[in-house]
């Protein structure tokens, strides 16, 4: 915004020429600009806490009311995938923090490298979520449409690291095909809950006189919350990956420096927040009543 040259204020023109090219005109200094950006991003994250918080509230209420149904639903999830994803996301937080570190050092090449690592790890996370979601569709526990409980046919679940890596790239696992209803979670579910009541079926064969139509509905609510919470989380991850791609591109073009890299720090804050949401989602969704 060019100021008009007047005889009374020529010094303003000189000051104008001195400032950092990335200093916005309404700020007095880079420090003020960075402080404002950081505070703004923190406040945005607080709104996100309350946004996800609403779903945590619904989860808390219904877990309290329908604990057994939540336990049954939770036992359907694969602990291998859940733990793996948690580790992947934590690793991506590390690479993000390191990207910020290198930005503070002014090392653009390493910034790009660590941003790319973060993107790759985030993509692996989303790939696993895709596998898990496909499994749910296959097992008919997606809450809308053709929901069926008990599960009649289990999808492939990994039970070792090798199988996980094979399934990640879309190959067939070697060991994890279920061998009938006595296997994996069906066994656990049957033996553990058999004495609790007639709610848990073996391969879909619940004796007719003890079928409780309401129970399936409550398990359906668990899955509804599962998809809503992990779905919104995944949406935030996709947005985050988009932001990271933009940043990596800009870093590669040399936009950032030791004095100016706030967008990387702010995106880092966002990414860490998304990690924290998952840190809570993992035990709440995957680990309900897992012990025998």
């Amino acid at each position: 915004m060019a100021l008009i040259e007047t005889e009374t204020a020529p010094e303003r023109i000189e000051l104008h020429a001195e400032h950092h090219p990335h200093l916005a005109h309404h700020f007095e200094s880079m420090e003020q600009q960075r402080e404002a950006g950081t505070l703004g991003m923190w406040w945005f994250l607080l709104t996100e806490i309350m946004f996800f918080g609403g779903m945590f509230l619904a989860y808390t209420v219904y877990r309290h009311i329908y604990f057994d149904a939540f336990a049954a639903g939770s036992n359907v999830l694969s602990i291998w995938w859940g733990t793996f994803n948690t580790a992947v996301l934590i690793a991506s937080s590390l690479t993000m923090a390191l990207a910020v570190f290198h930005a503070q050092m002014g090392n653009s090449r390493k910034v790009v490298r660590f941003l790319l690592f973060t993107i790759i790890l985030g993509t692996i996370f989303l790939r696993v979520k895709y596998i898990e979601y496909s499994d749910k569709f296959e097992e008919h526990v997606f809450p809308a449409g053709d929901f069926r409980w008990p599960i009649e046919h289990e999808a492939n679940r990994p039970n070792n690291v090798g199988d996980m890596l094979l399934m990640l790239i879309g190959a067939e696992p070697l060991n994890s095909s279920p061998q009938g209803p006595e296997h994996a979670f069906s066994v656990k579910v049957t033996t553990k809950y058999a004495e609790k009541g007639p709610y848990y079926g073996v391969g879909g064969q619940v004796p007719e006189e003890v079928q409780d139509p309401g129970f399936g509905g409550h398990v359906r609510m668990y899955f509804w919350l599962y998809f809503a919470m992990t779905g919104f989380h995944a949406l935030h991850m996709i947005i985050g990956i988009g932001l990271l791609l933009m940043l990596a591109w800009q870093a590669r073009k040399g936009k950032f420096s030791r004095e100016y890299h706030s967008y990387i720090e702010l995106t880092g804050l966002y990414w860490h927040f998304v990690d924290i949401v998952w840190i809570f989602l993992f035990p709440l969704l995957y680990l309900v009543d897992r012990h025998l």
Partner: protein
Amino acid sequence: MSEHIVPKKIYYRIFGALLVGTALTVIFAFINLGNFNIVAALLIAIAKALLVITFFMHVKYSSRLTKLWVAVGFIWLFIMLAITMTDYLSRAWLVYRP
């Protein structure tokens, strides 16, 4: 926020702690602690979140105001959860017995 540069080795240590926490979460899930399973899981999750907030998000090196806002966010969430759950927990207290 002053530009405090956190040394890399702290990041690696925190990363290690987070992985340990994850492993503990899974291990505890398979031990029967009754009602305390959820308590243990949440305590570990809170500890992990605090590590991420304090070190990865640099809150330890941020102003007191930032620390206040972070606390406020979680307190507000807690208010919403606690008061609403009070409703569900206390509804059954008043039971009509004819």
